[in-house]
């Protein structure tokens, strides 16, 4: 009797649960998944300032891949993304290993390494724009030390400006990478390390042979997150270089914004957004699925 009553009230509550969850599910289906289909449709139409249903097949994709600006955006994403992911992970891991040596003042160092992550990408861009300005920033500082011919004007140089984006982005997020690696290091059972030490392994050897291999899942997470950040980077580059000089620091996010909202070429903008989605899928989603499998 009591059992069946509970069942019944459980059934009612189950309905309430379903009702309470449904707005989110509907929102996700409409605002994420239907919007993705919608963007796919837009990319196949002659949409300019306003959406249009005039089907043009793959013409927008032909325009996109016929555009040197788009190719520059892609290759910039490759340069920026590759360097940014590699360098911020390397610095993050290095700092985490240093902090893992039972350091006095560990908290203080962590606070200092991580605060850039609390600041907006736009503020980071503005700050580094000032630091990288040849008349005032790093170049001027080094020159004032007596090296009067020192050159560091990357931010004004179309061939090098993309590397200034790497510098600023690494500054902003390598502390975050540090936090992830430190969490990973702290999660490794001290017993494995102790066993290796008893076997007579030195610190370097222990890191190479025992700790780093055990850190594989952490490398996964760090890679997913930093690759995602690289593909999404937008405000930082807008504030740092505005995508220039010329369009030398354009990346797909900037290309998409400019074509969709400034140049009124919505079809091409939609096509570029889809390529971004495809890049994200190829780079990130396999890792997310693997990671989710491991956790469930």
């Amino acid at each position, binding site marked *: 009797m009591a059992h069946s009553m509970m069942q019944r009230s*459980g059934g009612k*509550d189950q309905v309430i649960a379903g009702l*309470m969850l449904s707005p989110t599910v509907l929102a996700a289906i409409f605002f994420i998944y*239907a919007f993705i289909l919608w*963007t796919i449709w837009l990319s196949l139409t002659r949409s300019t300032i306003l959406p249009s249903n005039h089907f043009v097949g793959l013409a927008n994709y032909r325009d996109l891949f016929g555009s040197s600006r788009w190719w520059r955006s892609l290759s910039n994403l490759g340069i920026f993304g590759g360097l940014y992911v590699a360098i911020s992970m390397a610095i993050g891991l290095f700092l985490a290993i240093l902090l893992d040596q039972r350091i006095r003042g560990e908290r203080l160092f962590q606070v200092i390494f991580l605060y850039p992550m609390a*600041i907006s990408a*736009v503020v980071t861009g503005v700050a*580094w724009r000032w630091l990288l300005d040849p008349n005032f920033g790093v170049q001027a500082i080094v020159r004032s030390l007596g090296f009067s011919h020192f050159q560091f004007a990357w931010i004004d140089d179309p061939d090098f400006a993309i590397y200034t984006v790497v510098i600023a982005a690494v500054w902003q997020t390598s502390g975050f990478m540090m936090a992830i690696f430190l969490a990973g290091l702290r999660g490794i059972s001290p017993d494995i390390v102790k066993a290796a030490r008893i076997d007579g392994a030195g610190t370097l050897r222990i890191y190479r042979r025992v700790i780093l291999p055990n850190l594989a899942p952490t490398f996964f997470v760090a890679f*997913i997150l930093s690759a995602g950040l690289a593909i999404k980077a937008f405000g930082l580059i807008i504030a740092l270089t505005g995508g220039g000089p010329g369009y030398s620091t354009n990346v797909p*996010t900037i290309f998409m914004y400019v074509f969709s909202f400034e140049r009124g070429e919505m079809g091409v903008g939609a096509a570029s957004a889809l390529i971004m989605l495809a890049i994200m899928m190829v780079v990130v989603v396999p890792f997310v699925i693997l990671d989710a499998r491991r956790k469930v």
Partner: protein
Amino acid sequence: MRRLSIYFLLTLAALFFLLPLYIMLVTSFKTMPEIYSQGILALPRQFDLYAWRHAWSGATIGASDQGIHPFFINSFELVIPAVIISTAIGAINGYILTHWRFRGANIIFYLLLLGTVFPFQIILLPMAWVQGKLHIAGTLIPGLVMVHIIYGLAFTTLFFRNYYVSIPHDLVRAARVDGAGFFRIFWRVMLPLSTPIIMVTAIWQFTMIWNNFLFGVVFTNSDQQPVTVAINDLVDTVTSVHMWNVDMAAALIAAIPTLVVYLLAGKYFVRGLTGGAVKG
């Protein structure tokens, strides 16, 4: 010796991380002539508050010369409802997904999980169209608030879901045997246990929404813009002389709320960072 080199390297790194903040601070207290005559590393000779005052209430941004303060207020008006609503819905969702599991709950979970990794460029165009149809295009409230709530839900749901998974089922079962229903269990059993995850989620959402630039620049116009968009406009405005001191003061003003949150509740911030995904 080894210890010493560890501290040396850590200190070097700390200097690199602190340098931009230091330079922003000292620049914001200098006059423009002083910036030209002294290196940017030098301390200001006297603390001149002009740049801060001008950035706050005098600098020209877009069509007005009221400085950054209306946009600073905009960001608060955006962040407060967006954080509260997205956190509240996330809590209910997380509770349902963990303790009222039904067929398809996993699929819903993965749909949301994927929702956290898509680049937002993929939804900008339809969203702009929908906002136009709803006659809320360009507005902070409800336009931008709505965007942030919708795209924050995946994150807040995941935070609460991952936290509630660890709360024993028996607790909920016992409450049901005692006759408590869906809402009563949520109020009396789940919420009292939720303070840490509410902190993590609220701080995470606050930081992400405050710092967001893409949605702000796409979905708001002129005086409705959040502070991140406004500083970019300020810095980008081409005048005869670039007022670096004003730029730095404005950028610092825009950074203060999240820096304060970080310094006061850093542990929750870090937990959010390492526990959740990151949206740009």
